[in-house]
């Protein structure tokens, strides 16, 4: 280095110092830097959410941002499948089942300031229809929406939809979005651009920062109408690697890991961390492609009942974070439904497999961060091998899965997925899974009886609909196009110091952020 450059560097350094002065970028209100900061709840996400827009968002991870910011008219009561009031204090359904009258709270204000009225609710519901993205179907049967007065919201349906109240309580159901998005920043896309990074809701938290790829910040809503949140701030940081998440949790830099923690590693966690296993409606399912050989032969399909050892799949795949499924519907949705008859029987399995036109199978599993579906896939591969099949296994991503329906000949023979219904009603599960037009019926299973019964049941009162749902269940069992393997639990790995855990089976991978607190 010459003398000149040295001098230059010195000048630069001095200049930099002069410019820097002694400013600080640290936030004023957060005194301690990280561990044990009592006012901030830190939660990792494995991936970015799509968008924090309730009328577009239709995934699971990200539901915390939606549900602590926005509220629907109804919700599921914590720890149950029961519907309870939320923004509506009560509701009435007319005798013909076509008119729903909701009485709205009058003490709710939006994060942006204005009071919530019936008109704002109506505007929000209309927005969902206008935006017309994935969750819009829930309002597809609506004929009209009117406001009788500031607190009376009336929805008239074109035809009877018995689970309609469940739509209102669903994690993805219509939410009441404020005027900041719907009016002020509507633009020409109903405020979709605004809602990509901002929000205006009524919930206990408001979205104050949305930095894609890094973190989302929720700040306590001091004007909240209900029980105020305990934490001043919730920071959801994108931490894609589970190992990194774990190390940060152990060190106290994260508070709760909501999902994806490998079941086998729970035991190796230190004492400062507790593990909560809670019921959810998430289900592990095996799809069978009945549109091509070998499983277009009902007898070969039936052989799978004796081939699959659900006990082993669930126990080794999930340890005690899932239970073996006993019925077609998620537990609690349809009491008295037919029991699943799967019992491993090597001789029967082999006999059925011997009739198969081809023994070469492809087994797909959807990619998930904890690798649990891969594990189940590999176990199943081994079980099928015992029966005499030669199984190739592959990982697929969701958009690929949607593409199968277009060319079922090329689609895999078997597929392992974990799905959850939109709400706690038999129709919400059966329609999307088993109906031939169902959005989650990825391998094109067709069953006319199922379709017909689903069409009938949706407009019938429960006492008449339930026998039909049971018939559907029996049909699905006998048809062997879907195998229900496991009821997956929510596994929350959290700091020992946290209390107030509250969650709902119908809201997967989610705890109520507002109810959590540090210490007693």
């Amino acid at each position, binding site marked *: 280095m010459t003398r000149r450059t040295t001098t230059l560097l010195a000048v630069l350094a001095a200049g930099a110092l002069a410019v820097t002065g002694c400013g600080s970028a640290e936030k004023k209100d957060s005194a301690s830097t990280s561990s044990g900061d009592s006012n901030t709840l830190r939660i990792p996400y494995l991936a970015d959410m799509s968008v924090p827009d309730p009328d577009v968002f239709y995934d699971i991870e990200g539901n915390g941002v939606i549900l602590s910011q926005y509220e629907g008219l109804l919700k599921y009561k914590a720890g149950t499948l029961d519907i309870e009031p939320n923004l509506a204090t009560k509701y009435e359904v007319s005798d013909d089942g076509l008119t729903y009258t909701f009485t709205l709270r009058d003490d709710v204000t939006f994060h942006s300031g204005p009071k919530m009225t019936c008109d704002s609710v109506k505007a929000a519901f209309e927005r969902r229809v206008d935006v017309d993205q994935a969750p819009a179907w829930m309002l597809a049967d609506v004929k009209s929406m009117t406001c009788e007065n500031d607190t009376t919201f009336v929805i008239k349906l074109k035809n009877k939809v018995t689970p309609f109240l469940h739509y209102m309580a669903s994690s993805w159901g219509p939410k009441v979005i404020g005027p900041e998005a719907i009016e002020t920043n509507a633009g020409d896309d109903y405020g979709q651009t605004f809602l990509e990074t901002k929000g205006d809701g009524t919930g206990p938290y408001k979205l104050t920062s949305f930095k894609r790829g890094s973190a989302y910040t929720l700040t306590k809503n001091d004007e909240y109408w209900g029980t105020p949140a305990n934490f001043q701030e919730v920071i959801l940081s994108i931490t894609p690697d589970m190992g990194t998440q774990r190390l940060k949790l152990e060190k106290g830099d994260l508070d709760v890991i909501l999902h994806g923690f490998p079941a*086998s590693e729970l035991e190796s966690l230190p004492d400062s961390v507790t593990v909560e296993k809670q019921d959810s409606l998430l289900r592990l399912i095996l799809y069978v492609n009945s549109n091509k050989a070998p499983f277009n032969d009902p007898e070969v399909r039936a052989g799978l009942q004796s081939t699959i050892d659900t006990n082993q799949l669930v126990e080794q795949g999930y340890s005690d974070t899932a239970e073996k499924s006993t019925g077609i519907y998620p537990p609690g949705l349809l009491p008295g439904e037919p029991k699943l008859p799967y019992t491993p029987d090597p001789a029967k399995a082999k006999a059925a497999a011997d009739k198969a036109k081809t023994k070469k199978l492809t087994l797909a599993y959807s990619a998930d961060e904890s690798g649990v579906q891969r594990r189940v896939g590999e176990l199943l591969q081994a079980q099928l091998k015992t029966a005499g099949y030669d199984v190739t296994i592959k990982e697929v991503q969701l958009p690929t899965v949607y593409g199968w329906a277009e060319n079922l000949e090329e689609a895999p023979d078997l597929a392992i997925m974990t799905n959850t219904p939109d709400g706690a009603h038999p129709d919400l599960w059966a329609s999307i899974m088993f109906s031939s037009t169902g959005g989650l019926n990825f391998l094109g299973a067709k069953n006319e009886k199922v379709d017909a019964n689903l069409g009938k049941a949706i407009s019938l009162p429960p006492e008449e609909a339930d026998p039909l749902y049971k018939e559907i269940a029996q049909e699905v069992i006998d048809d062997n196009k879907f195998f229900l393997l496991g009821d997956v639990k929510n596994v929350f790995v959290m700091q020992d110091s946290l209390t107030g855990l509250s969650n709902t089976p119908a809201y997967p991978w989610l705890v109520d952020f507002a109810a959590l607190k540090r210490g007693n």
Partner: protein
Amino acid sequence: MTTTTEQPPTMTEGAVPVEGPGAAAAREVPTPVARMWRGRPALSPGALKGDTVWHALIPVAILSLVILIAPVLAPYGATEVNPVGPLASPSPDAWFGTDEIGRDVFSRILIGIRTSWFAALGVILLGTIIGGLIGAIAGAFGGKVDMVLMRVTDLFLSLPAPVLAIAVIAAMGPSLRNTLIALSIVWWPWYARIVRGEVRALAARPHAEAAKLAGVSRTRLVLKHLLPGAAAPVIVTMSLDVGNLILALAGLSFIGLGAPPPAPELGAMSARGLQYLFGHPWVPIAPAAAVALLALAANLLGDAINRRLDQRTTR
């Protein structure tokens, strides 16, 4: 960087061939520089003793033996379950423990070395064949043929190989075959360069000139006289590439684009086992250590051959 008159001409040439876009300047490439890809040592003084190659050959010989008799050595099959149960710690019954399915990690590594080795070799051979053919044709014919072929090669060289491989696999869907195809697509240009450079340089040598004068056909000239000369640096590059490829496979598995399960591919085993690092560390660490050993052995052999060749040429 300033130019000094003292600078030996080889250095200039050394800088030329790997320049990225439109390296038309690289038409007269001398042999040693082509070996530079990823830190290949070029000519070095024959400072080491002649038996270095044999030192390096010992681990490779052991490795080859392992690869050859892996199925015999392995107490269990690659997908066979060890009765000690899933995620069991290392013990006399399961030397390196078992994985999440209960498969024997030691057996899987033995067989995995084979899979990874063959996978790497497959890519390298494919790269050598495609690249060698293009390089040989370009080098032997020269002129317009050379220019066109090398421009295409340059195009591929100018693209970031790893990024492209990721995109290719993401498009075709992950499978061991697709992964290997994708890697071959981005791997061959280096071999084309090396072979072409060697062929060009050798073509200018007296013995090639003599053969030409004696009326030997061009094909025969290339096959008999030029290609064998290019073999040595290609072998060096190949041996050094084994480690790089196995690491590339591991990285791809980590982002979900590697060999699908239950293939006992070392990189995939390590990447998929990473989630067990804290509770059951043997699951990811044992295969990673095997990757490291494999890469190390390949590297040492490559370096040793390189130095050995060096001595031959400097003498």
